């Protein structure tokens, strides 16, 4: 009921800047999107477009020199009495008790490097049990039982033995499963998966995605899936947000994005997917140029330096705004400005 009517998480005009000696890096520069329970939101873009910083901003774990400048992040959650309660995450101090209970409690994170995401000096069990006990008042013994159950749930064989092993004793796929188990330890409502399969081989990748989908079906999880891989998006996402240089350039349901992309950047991204239907020896399309250096952001539309459909005099001087072009479909491009 909650799922259909209201988004569980709404991000509005989020801006996260990094203040460095050389200047300000606008890692996220006005991102807005909604996340619904039981649905997967895919955030896609090239590396350096602000996807991961968006995830960190939601969890309020941006590095020291980064700051959320403006915007809001509304989390709707059900209190123990069953009422819906709304929290504005950017208003909470990053290290407050409440923010910490949300971080890892309501919203959990799994991310790309399963090798280095675990401390090599602690057993994986130690790290999962720590997460469990942070958000519950289970005893050590009970927490250990729960950790073993979680490991079993994510499909780890012999969990009662694996729990006392170190991350370097596990294979990459197992490690990512353990990571997922740890993220699920406090029954989160939202799971942010930051490039969860990038470091894995294709078979393992498919297994992990399958696992995520199964868990979503079982628990009604909302998933924010961050990736640069359009294939993963096509398989997993219900809604898609395309980001470029910290800005959302296009947003819509997955079918619309794939079949009727509007923004030249989205179109270019889709052209760069290798297709098995393509004729042999046809060259794969690439996006010309590279992402501008964050210190000298182009004036106007951030994409105009690489855009094939640039309107001179407009795209390089004014910034386009996100405007609707269809049901639930918005794009930020002067080609569609009315």
């Amino acid at each position, binding site marked *: 009921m909650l799922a259909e009517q209201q988004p569980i998480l709404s991000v509005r005009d989020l801006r996260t800047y990094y203040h460095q000696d050389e200047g300000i890096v606008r890692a996220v520069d006005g991102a807005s999107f909604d996340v619904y329970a039981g649905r997967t939101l895919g955030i896609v873009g090239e590396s350096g477009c602000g996807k991961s910083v968006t995830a960190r901003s939601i969890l309020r774990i941006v590095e020291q020199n980064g700051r959320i400048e403006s915007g809001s992040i509304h989390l709707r959650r059900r209190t123990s009495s069953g009422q819906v309660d709304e929290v504005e995450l950017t208003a909470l101090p990053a290290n407050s008790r409440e923010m910490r209970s949300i971080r890892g409690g309501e919203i959990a994170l799994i991310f790309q490097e399963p090798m280095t995401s675990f401390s090599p000096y602690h057993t994986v069990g130690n790290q999962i049990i720590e997460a469990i006990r942070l958000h519950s008042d289970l005893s050590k013994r009970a927490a250990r039982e729960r950790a073993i159950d979680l490991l079993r749930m994510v499909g780890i064989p012999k969990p009662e033995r694996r729990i006392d092993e170190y991350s370097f004793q596990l294979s990459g796929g197992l490690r990512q499963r353990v990571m997922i188990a740890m993220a699920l330890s406090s029954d989160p409502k939202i799971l942010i998966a930051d490039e969860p399969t990038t470091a894995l081989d294709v078979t393992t990748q498919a297994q992990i995605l399958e696992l995520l989908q199964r868990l979503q079906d079982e628990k009604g999880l909302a998933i924010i899936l961050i990736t640069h891989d359009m294939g993963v998006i096509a398989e997993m996402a219900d809604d898609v947000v395309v980001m470029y240089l910290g800005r959302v350039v296009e947003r819509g349901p997955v079918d619309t994005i794939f079949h009727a992309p509007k923004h030249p950047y989205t179109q270019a991204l889709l052209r760069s997917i290798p297709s098995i239907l393509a004729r042999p020896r046809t060259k794969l399309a690439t996006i010309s140029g590279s992402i501008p250096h964050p210190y*000298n952001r*182009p*004036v106007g539309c951030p994409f105009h*330096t690489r855009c094939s459909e640039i309107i*001179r*005099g407009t795209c*390089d*001087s004014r910034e386009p705004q996100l405007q609707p072009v269809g049901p639930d479909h918005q794009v930020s491009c002067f080609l569609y400005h009315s």
Partner: protein
Amino acid sequence: MAEAVETLKGSTLPPQRDAEAERAAADRISMATQWQLMWWRFRKHRLAMAAAVVVLFGYTIVLFADFFAYANPRQSDAQLSLLPPQPIYFFEDGQFRPHVLGLTGKRDPRTFRRVYEPDPEKKMYLTLFAQGYEYKLFGFIPTNRHLIGVTNGRAEDGIFLMGTDLQGRDLFSRLMLATQTSLTIGLVGVALSLFLGVLLGGISGLYGGVVDAIIQRLIEIVRSIPTIPLWMGLAAAMPSEWPITRIYFFITIIIALIGWTTMARVVRGRFLALREEDFVTAAELAGASQMRIIFRHMVPSFLSHIIAATTLALPAMIIAETSLSFLGLGLRAPAVSWGVLLQQASNIQAVAITPWLLIPAIPVIVMVLAFNFLGDGLRDAADPYG
């Protein structure tokens, strides 16, 4: 229409120029040699630049030690024993006429120490490029010019910037000579340890296997032996009747015996890393001989690391020489080095009554710091990721 085109051009021009500038910068970087890149990175390191100036200054003194000295550093004078530093007066009757005052020394009948009284009537005027004691510049040009001197009288009787030692020798002039010794002994020591280190480290990294294991074990053993007792043992082995030059040479060998291990590790590490590099594989595939690969491809690419490691090894050498000489096991009189000078300040009485004898500690600290900063800067410049 034409106007529109004009404005269009006008608006797109700045980004284009930017792009051009960027491309030019990129070209400049890609065309630059490794040494230019290093120099550009090094220049940004302010502390290292300052340290480089200090080091240059130090070696200027090494070259012109006798020129900077104003009093004969080897001439002792019991009448001037343990004289405290004396000031220079720059003005006379409101005019710039730098001068010093003559001194009369008396022995205090109770403490038996000599006490000195300045005599305001006896003024000695200072001048630049004055004539003083005879010496040979660079060892073969006879001259008697010194940076400063006295117009009426001998500099030996007038200027005492840092006081005198027990034998009445001028500390400042001796410090100049000591700098010559201490800063070169480090260089020679480093050169020797560099030779040993590159040789053994190179063999170790190049051949690997058993040879590598043996050399690594050897390094481990040498490193786990406490250095100072070993130095002391080796230094004590030098017969006291040896001439200074032989002792000097022997001391450098002793110091180098320990220092080479660090160098060997650096070289071995670089060799191991470079062996895997694509350009080495490429050279191998192109059929280059092993010697050619080593000297044309591998050595140039880690020469900068070696230079940085060498700079960082110098402070340890300087401290080692100073420590040994301080103990009386290193250089001995009549040789002069920072450690030899400090020997006179080795007990609490000396420190308490004649604190200026501690002054030679300052150049030790300054030079050690300078070499450290310089080495750090060079290392960062040589390898921004290292």
